[in-house]
């Protein structure tokens, strides 16, 4: 509350501040996001070997994503509420289309080519929580048993469609984005605990009937990466070497050896955190985590400040998904979770996740800046 006020006071008389406020931009959030985008640029410059082509592609994605973010911030929250159902249905249709006619890449069918290649599953990271928030906002809080079942079905449909592609990382994020809405809506702790037990029981079935062999490999190598150091355990071992060799203060920007000499695979995408840790060390990692934590705290604050149930639930879920991104990515890079294809939000190279993430922050800004003035 105090932070908010002070930030607004600070910008009260500045032209820039006025402009940003008129554009419905949340300045603290924007600053933190810009820090991440600058870091992304720096890291890709270092990892890509000063490949300006790569940087320009990333910059254009950032530009598109930022425009989308600002556009969404202009909309009123009830607009999102209104379009929740069509948006969700469109997402489901596209997912089915992917399974029917999608492009295959890296052993998975994830992309749809409609003039440009894109991953419909990314859309679901926003449309699923929107749908669930819409549904729960229309019923009593905390939700009743019947509503919970309907919500679970709403979540399961896109999740299973994405699992079929297969894309474990995205399905995980979609499922958790929906489930987090349920959590914020006040799902009883009793259900939560039994759900955790239920999922544990489901694991072996999932292992046998749904997981592809490469996914199983990831899990087994996670449990013992040294069993096959030149093969399946290579990723995680090289990643740990990169992080560990960075030490407390790091080797310095562009001074990483692990990725520049090609020892570390996927160094510009999913494993970019390892490069960051190698170059900037523990201190750099702490600073980065602090930036992420600030964004999360700001997001939760926005959610708490939101004026209606739908906004609150959606904001909470979006920021929760963002946290899962950060946590799962860093956990797999440091070797405490198996490798699932989840990028480091806003820093990894790649377009689709950036569009969705910044779109999410656009929604958050919209929620925060379109408040009806209440009598104090």
């Amino acid at each position, binding site marked *: 509350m105090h932070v908010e006020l002070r930030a607004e006071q600070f910008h009260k008389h500045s032209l820039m501040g006025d402009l940003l406020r008129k554009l419905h931009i949340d300045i603290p959030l924007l600053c933190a996001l810009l820090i991440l985008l600058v870091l992304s640029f720096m890291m890709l410059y270092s990892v890509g070997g000063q490949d300006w082509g790569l940087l320009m592609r990333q910059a254009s994605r950032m530009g598109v994503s930022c425009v989308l973010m600002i556009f969404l911030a202009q909309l009123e929250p009830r607009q999102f509420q209104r379009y929740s159902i069509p948006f969700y249905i469109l997402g489901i249709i596209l997912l089915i289309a992917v399974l029917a006619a999608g492009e295959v890449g890296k052993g998975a069918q994830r992309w749809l080519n409609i003039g440009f290649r894109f991953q419909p599953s990314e859309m679901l990271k926003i449309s699923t929580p929107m749908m669930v928030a819409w549904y729960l906002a229309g019923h009593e809080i905390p939700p009743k048993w019947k509503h919970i079942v309907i919500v679970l079905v709403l979540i399961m449909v896109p999740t299973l469609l994405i699992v079929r592609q297969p894309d474990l990382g995205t399905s995980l994020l979609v499922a958790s984005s929906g489930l987090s809405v349920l959590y914020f809506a006040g799902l009883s702790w009793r259900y939560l605990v039994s759900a955790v037990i239920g999922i544990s029981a489901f694991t072996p079935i999932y292992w046998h009937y749904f997981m592809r062999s490469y996914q199983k490999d990831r899990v087994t190598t996670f449990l013992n990466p040294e069993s096959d150091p030149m093969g399946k355990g290579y990723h995680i071992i090289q990643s*740990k070497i990169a992080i560990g060799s960075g030490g407390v203060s790091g080797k310095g920007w562009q001074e990483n050896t692990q990725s520049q000499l090609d020892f570390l695979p996927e160094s510009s995408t999913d494993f970019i955190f390892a490069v960051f840790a190698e170059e900037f060390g523990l201190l750099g990692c702490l600073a980065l985590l602090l930036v992420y934590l600030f964004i999360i705290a700001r997001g939760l604050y926005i959610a708490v400040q939101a004026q209606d149930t739908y906004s609150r639930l959606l904001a909470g879920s979006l920021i929760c998904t963002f946290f899962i991104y950060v946590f799962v990515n860093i956990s797999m890079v440091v070797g405490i979770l198996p490798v699932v294809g989840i990028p480091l939000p806003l820093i990894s190279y790649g377009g689709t996740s950036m569009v969705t993430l910044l779109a999410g922050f656009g929604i958050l800004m919209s929620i925060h800046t379109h408040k009806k003035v209440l009598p104090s």
Partner: protein
Amino acid sequence: MRRHQVIKDVFLENRIFLSRTVVMFVLMLFLIVGLITRLVYLQVSGHDKYHSMATNNRIKVSSIPPTRGIIYDKKGRVLAENLPSYSLEVIPEQVKDMPNTLLRLQQILNISEEKITYFQKHSNRYKRFDSIPLLLKMSAEEVAKFAVVRHTFPGVDIHARLIRHYPYKELTAHAVGYLGRINSRELKRVSATEYRGIHFIGKTGLESAYEDTLRGYTGYAEIETNAQGKPIKTLANIMPTPGADLYLSLDIDLQKIAYDALAEYNGAVVALDLESGGIIVQVSKASFDPNLFVSGISHADYKRINHSRDMPLFDRVLRGLYPPGSTLKPFVGLAGLEHKVVQKQQKLFCPGYYQLPHKAHKYRDWKKRGHGMVNLEKAIVESCDVYFYDMALTLGIDKLSSFLNDFGFGKRSGVDLNGESAGLLPSREWKRIHKNTIWYPGETLITGIGQGFTQVTPLQLAYATGILANNGKSIAPFLVERKVYVDRVDKVKHPQVKKVNLKADNLAVIRKGMVNVVHSARGTARLIAGKRTYQIAGKTGTAQVYSIKQDEEYDEEEIAFNMRDHALFIAYAPADNPKIVVAVIAEHGSHGSSTAAPIASAVITEYLKEGE
């Protein structure tokens, strides 16, 4: 669109949402702390470990072998050099299926089974990315054969390497020795760091004795490589230090003269420079081509050389043990004079045999009819056995043994080569220890004429003669005069100059006798006197290989060649101002006078001709 209008408890909703948010935030903080803990574990506790792993990942240290020192003779002629040659080398890291690759290589090139075995046994000594030689000294044909199929052998390539070469082949085989590939026994002995990148080690001769001097020091290149093993850049370069060149006292011309002079005989020729003590000639025959050993000798060649009855691998100069025969007489005579058991002109009658008091056994003289009245000088000139039987008996084994010991008999001369034999100088104590019996007077007699237990090496014989010629001054023989390093020249110090105290009068008698061996009408080596501006002092000798029973005749014609006596000759010249001393042993040459003396004469003549 269906929309239920639900009456909402806004207060309850806010409360639930706030509490859920707080719980969620706490959970997130908790998880982030977990991540930080993990990062601390990796980056602080694990830093050293991962740092070295990262370094090992990228930096490969490849060794640059040093160039081995070259060996020159006295006049700067190359005795051992490094010639560029092609070798087939394998980098194990780049070979996917090693057994199959080796098998295919064998089908194309003539690679013996031993070489394959050696390669397999020794490849683990190297790093995976090191290039290991498989086949050395490839012929142009072999190079061409492989070049055609090279693309089908990833990790196998032809490299130009320096290979040791001995241009004088059998002439220097024993003195210079040879280089060979390091075997597993040597591997345990040497330091792995010093031999990184080095595939050869000196096996015999100077190559072995001066291994550390000749070898030099390996250089290193630290190369940064990427994950595919491709070199990116050189981080550091330490140039190798080449080994020092050796300059010898050996004269290859004289070496060749001595070798050729031995003609059909096996044996040894040693010549020493009396001023410095340096070895001028060091011939051991039969010999072999040392170049065969450098690139890995084939089984057939090795079998041929090793099983030859001529024993070409055996270094006779350092390890050949021969009875000195009559060549010992000057020393025995000098012992008699020094111990005053005889006067210079004291005479003795030689009936052609000698008997111990109250014993029937006849110790024979080589001259059946006897020498008549003999004094010491005549006894040396005519090599009268009886005279020395008597002298040895009078001296007794103890005095004789200790006197001969001063001349280096029975001990190593200290030459700068490995594996020198100490020979054998018998004594009472030696017999008690080794034979477990007492010393018999008869054994003293035969010791006096250089037979019996006494055994000397050709080097010892030359060394001892040198002491006589040098008026008692003894210098340990050596081959290496100078070590020439990149930045300095080391004159090798040979400090062992000792002095045997001898009376000049006594020495003069012996030396006169030795001159008359060559330069008098009755001298045993009068055939080599010839016309020269200087005199040669010498002494012939015959060493029995086959012992004759009492009353049996030694008939040269009837005895198989390998049972014939060894012919010996020792000499120094010029007699009045000695510069060179020579010892010759011609195995089964029968007579020192006819076989061994001309060989020594050839060496002396050439040496002193040069000196003019």
